[in-house]
């Protein structure tokens, strides 16, 4: 082994050792912090999905509006999507107050099956929901209707997850029964 080779070998090994130290230790810490962040994000997004129903159910439309970004888009149904936080808040307030389906009170949202994919400060989610209403056919009974699929784009703004886009797709009952 030549002197040059010996030197090169020493330098190479030192480099490997140094590389291992710099990559493995802080990289591991950042990775752990990132994993924790994603778990926290998932919990916060699950609560956001629940808050959507909770605020509407208690007719707290201001709190409902705060779940959306200023430039949010709310779509689904037949018409054009509604654009902007204030417009979405007003549209839902009007829709619930006017009760176009003539649902008997009380009524509320239930949600299931959240599937959430997080990429940094942005996430997409798909979940299902239904509306619980009294059942006119059985006194005191309840029924579930308007089973929907929610397609969401969520963003982190000021440390909070918000809806940037929410699209509803009705599944049951078919549109003719609505």
């Amino acid at each position, binding site marked *: 082994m030549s002197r040059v080779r010996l030197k090169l070998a020493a330098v190479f090994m030192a480099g490997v050792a140094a590389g291992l130290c710099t990559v493995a*230790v802080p990289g591991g810490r950042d990775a752990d912090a990132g994993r*924790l962040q994603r*778990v926290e994000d998932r919990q916060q997004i*699950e609560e956001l999905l629940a808050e959507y129903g909770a605020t509407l159910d208690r007719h707290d439309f201001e*709190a409902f509006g705060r779940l959306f970004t200023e430039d949010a888009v709310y779509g689904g149904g037949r018409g054009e999507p509604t654009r902007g936080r204030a417009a979405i808040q007003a549209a839902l307030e009007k829709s619930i107050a006017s009760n176009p389906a003539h649902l008997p009170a009380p009524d*509320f*949202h*239930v949600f299931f099956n959240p599937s959430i994919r997080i990429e940094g400060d942005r996430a997409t989610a798909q979940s299902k929901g239904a509306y*619980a209403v009294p059942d006119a056919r059985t006194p005191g009974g309840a029924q579930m209707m308007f089973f929907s699929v929610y397609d969401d784009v969520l963003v982190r703004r000021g440390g909070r997850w918000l809806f940037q886009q929410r699209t509803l797709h009705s599944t049951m009952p078919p549109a003719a029964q609505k």
Partner: protein
Amino acid sequence: MSSTIPRIRRFGLRHFICAVLSAAALLAAGVSPVAAAGPTQAEFDALKARVQETQDRQEIQQLIVEYGHLLDTHDLVGYSNLFAREGEWIGGFGTAKGPKAILAMMNKYIGTSPFDPKNVKGFHLLTNIIIHLDGDRATAWSRIIYMTRNQDNKPVPAMGGHYDDTLIREDGHWKFLRRVVMMEIPFQDPRDIKGEPPPPPVSGP
């Protein structure tokens, strides 16, 4: 050693020392920033608090789901142990305080017949859980739909509403300190039963 020393002599001690020193310098350069960037006590405490909060949320979610599962499978002893020593249940059957009293109440109203998976009377659908943590206490709000079997042997919602919970960490486990079962369809406020004065409102949505 006998073979190393002549080899060092052959390559020259100067070069060997040079190589060792350069390796040491590189190692030091690589390691020292890591040591300097190690978490401070404050950073470590903040991280620990976040992990704790995440676990707390998960355990409370689990508690809320266990509540339904243990009732559905007639494990009333397990069910009653979800309540704190001073834990209260306030619902359609009335009010009971402490696991013993809650067990007695559920035995009375639900019965002590063993669970028969082939003849299920009904089950809880528990969703929309919202939790507010406050150290060793928490409040939670969640939805309940109780499904039953109808005459046509199909699952139908029999009633629905929400739970207002106050939770406490007791002996390292989250327990119900107070659970108010609020049925909305059909409406029934358990606090109106027997003309008891309404309890203080549970914070949170």
